[in-house]
């Protein structure tokens, strides 16, 4: 099939999954099986697009001309393809996990949950293949709105409060700042197409460049750059599969993906480097990296700690863009995949622990590692990948980011990244230590605890293996991303 058809299918199949969810709402097994098939098919479509990349069929498809010269259009480029692969591939795993979690936990409203989930995936794919900033913005907002019911899922006052913060920050920043930036770009550049080398060079100058960049950087609330990061911890009231796929992969990665797209294809790396417009952003991102790590250390709630860890890791990618070097941008791009694989593992482990024991605080998890070895083993691998130790995927992206920092002449950023790694060790590994080495009298008194159902422990085990695999194939991944910064494929 040609690429264009596949792009549409990749968005239509998750939409069909939503419709299927509604249609089969009284037949849970059919409904969930149907969604699984849709997830696999979506992933196959994205793989199909990947296999077509060499054929030179990367033309743009346009659906509507909404404003003069501004179409609802899609195309394929390496970064977007990577994002789509990550989102659709992990959807399959998370769906299986979600089934185990929702059933094991007796959550309600399964149909609404899986239907909204599918829409969120469809919009993530839309973001990945958007050919211009306008299309991207459209799907960015669909993603926000479709995930709102997932955050508010439990319907408790706490969930409603969390969902309010979630929507308030994401819609507030995107409409208040990002949209202004998008229209501004359109007014000065006359186009919003993602173009190699950027579209703004010679169109904006002087002090306005950092201002415009600021509107984007803060406007892309999904990238959780401080001080607009509060929505992410707030979103943790959602059921864990949502935190795993959406708030470690689809939603937050959509944010940093947009950030990279803006840096690479709207401003252009060279333009940013010449004007030095992103230097302030680099410092802010560095602050965000460290500050979020420090906050994470103070959290006893496992999901809250992971959320702050995500805030910190997302800023790596923003930092990569703000370095304004090819290596930095590449490192940022790779970190999308590496962090996704690592963090989804951690979240799924957190969910498994909750399903098996209903414990949410780290201080209660003494000795659990001995009864749940697979879960804790997977957690250890995921954590090491996030920290950035070989032989796990996370080490490569961190390596590239450091090379990028050296290229840019900001050696101090290397220090920031290393400090952050140390902080990661300090807040991620104690849980593993507690789990395996401390024993808790109380837990021994209730020997009923055992591994969660297979649908809960298998997915994190798979993604933990994924972290290893990514280490081995990092070279291929880097080569694949090279065209993004103008390098040869």
């Amino acid at each position, binding site marked *: 099939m040609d690429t264009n058809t596949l792009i549409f299918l990749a968005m239509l199949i998750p939409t069909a999954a939503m419709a299927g969810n509604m249609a089969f709402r009284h037949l849970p097994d059919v409904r969930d099986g149907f969604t699984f098939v849709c997830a696999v098919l979506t992933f196959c479509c994205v793989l199909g697009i990947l296999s077509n990349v060499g054929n030179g069929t990367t033309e743009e498809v346009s659906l509507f001309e909404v404003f003069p010269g501004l179409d609802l259009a899609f195309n394929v480029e390496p970064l977007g393809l990577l994002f789509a692969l990550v989102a659709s591939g992990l959807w399959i795993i998370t769906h299986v996990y979600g089934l185990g979690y929702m059933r094991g936990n007796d959550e309600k409203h399964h149909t609404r949950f899986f239907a909204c989930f599918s829409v969120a995936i469809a919009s993530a794919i839309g973001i990945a293949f958007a050919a211009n900033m306008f299309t991207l913005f459209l799907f960015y907002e669909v993603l926000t709105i479709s995930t709102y019911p997932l955050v508010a899922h439990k319907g408790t006052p706490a969930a409603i409060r969390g969902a*309010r913060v979630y929507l308030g920050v994401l819609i507030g920043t995107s409409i208040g700042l990002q949209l202004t930036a998008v229209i501004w770009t359109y007014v000065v550049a006359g186009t919003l197409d993602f173009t190699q080398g950027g579209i703004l060079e010679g169109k904006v100058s002087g002090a306005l460049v950092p201002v415009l960049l600021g509107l984007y950087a803060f406007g892309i609330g999904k990238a959780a750059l401080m001080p607009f990061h509060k929505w992410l911890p707030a979103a943790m009231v959602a059921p864990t599969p949502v935190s795993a796929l959406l708030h470690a992969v689809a939603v937050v990665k959509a944010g940093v993906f947009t950030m990279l797209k803006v840096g690479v294809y709207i401003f252009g790396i060279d333009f940013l480097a010449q004007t030095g417009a992103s230097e302030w952003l680099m410092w802010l991102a560095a602050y965000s990296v460290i500050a979020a790590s420090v906050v994470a250390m103070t959290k006893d709630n496992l999901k809250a700690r992971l959320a702050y860890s995500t805030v910190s890791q997302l800023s790596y990618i923003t930092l990569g863009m703000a370095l304004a070097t090819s290596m930095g941008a590449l490192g940022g791009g790779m970190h999308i995949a590496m962090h996704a694989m690592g963090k989804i593992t951690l979240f799924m482990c957190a969910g498994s622990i909750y399903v098996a024991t209903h414990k949410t605080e780290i201080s209660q998890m003494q000795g659990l590692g001995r009864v749940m070895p697979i879960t804790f083993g997977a957690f250890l691998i995921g954590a090491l990948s996030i920290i950035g130790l070989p032989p796990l995927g996370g080490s490569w992206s961190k390596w590239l980011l450091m090379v990028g920092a050296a290229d840019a002449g900001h050696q101090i950023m290397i220090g920031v990244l290393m400090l952050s790694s140390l902080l990661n060790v300090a807040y991620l590994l104690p849980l593993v230590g507690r789990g395996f080495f401390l024993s808790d009298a109380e837990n021994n008194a209730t020997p009923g605890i055992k591994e969660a159902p297979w649908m809960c422990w298998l997915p994190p085990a798979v993604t933990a293996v994924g972290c290893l695999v990514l280490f081995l194939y990092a070279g291929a991944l880097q080569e694949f991303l090279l065209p993004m910064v103008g390098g040869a494929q």
Partner: protein
Amino acid sequence: MAAEEVHHVALTLRDHLPVLQILIPFCAAPLVVLFGSRTLAWPMAFAASGLAFLCSIYLLMQVIDGGFISYHLGGWAPPLGIEYRVDAANAFVVFLISGIATVVLPFARASVNEEIPQKNHTLFYACFLLCLTGLLGMVITGDAFNVFVFLEISSLSTYVLVSQGSFTDKRALSAAYDYLILGTIGATFFVIGLGFLYMATGTLNMADLAGRIALLEDNRTVQAAFAFIVVGIGLKVAMFPLHLWLPNAYVYAPSAVTAFLAATATKAAVYVLLRFMFSVFQPDFVFGSLAITWIIGPLAVLAMFIASFVAVFQNNFKRMLAYSSIAQIGYMLLGIAILNVNGLTATMVHLFNHGITKAALFMAVGAIILRTGTTFYDRIAGMGRVMPLTGAAVVVGGLSLIGVPGTAGFISKWVLVQAALDNGWWWMALAIMLSSLLAVVYVWRVVEALYLQAPSDDVVHKEAPLSMLVPLWIMAGACIWFGFDTDITLGAARTAAEGLLAGSAGMAEISTAAAQAAH
């Protein structure tokens, strides 16, 4: 702009479209009363508005790319005779008004049965048609005094329509009375302005007026006339701070009436305001010598913020929407104040997009009233689960109100921000965005009430009937459709904006030709 007249010999039906547009509902209204049959009233009203809608589609298709149709009523040539003049600007508004009427009427049937006693039905539909006639007439006519006549037809019938809400809530009577007083003051101001103009120029044809006023810009009478006209129409527009009649009128009127009025009445008035500012008076005069930008602009911004802020604190769905309307009118006025092609395009396109959005929302309110009998947040709690399709329409309409991409509201907001940036008013662009954030808050309060609470047991647990859902979803669907396909909306709005900005140049030219022909 090179305006060209679509020449016609008055022979075929197609040539009489401009007058048929008015005559069909105008004649249907007394017929409904004469037949006096409850069963026939609704079909006749629906047929009449449907035919009017067809007329408007034909008219819009003829002028959407520029040019205009001049129709001489009774064959009397202007400026002595009354002229109907159709160009992209008013064809677009006529299309909106008759379209909304055609969609709202099927919805009205169930709603009116519920809210108004049967003996009044015939008169209700007759009034509805008269109101439609008045709104269409004031938009389509090219004669200034004729605008006043149609304005009064629509206003008087509106007062009656609003008062029909008194069968569910007696406060509708005082709301209608307030509206009557303020509306009459507005109309009086308007007619005083027209009187001054007539005194200074001796003519009432708009194109003719334009030519003569151009020579009289320093004349105090003309300047006073302008002030009277702007204030008079401003009342009808509900321009902040002349909006006081609006909230109560919208809240206490029957649901179908609110849906129709909110989508059309203020829009027709905005159009008349535009016509007078740009075609009758010269843009150079209005915005140059009188610096009206600095009166309209700040008032518009105040409306955007204050009315939105007030809307946030409402506990009644209908009243919240009413205040949101005042805020949204602020956006339209802001487009005028920005005064460039994009600004006027934004005004025109928002007029349309906001019309369909509010029609969808007020119809959803009507459907909810049918099941719960009220619109207070605590009483409509959980209805989104009981009425999934209605609830979803509220969400779609709400998103369009906020201006989320993929909805009609986004298109108008985009163009408006673009217009502000064209002028280099980046602070205004930010202000527009910030005021949209207030819309997020007031919309989301309703969404939370509808979805995140359990429905109470003393309401009817049933989805709205199909006769309501279909019109509701036509409008909600339109909110999405016009968020993607902007050929009609942006196309017509841009042609209209360019025509308006050219001032009366095109009109004067034709008017001299017509005058020569008359001699």
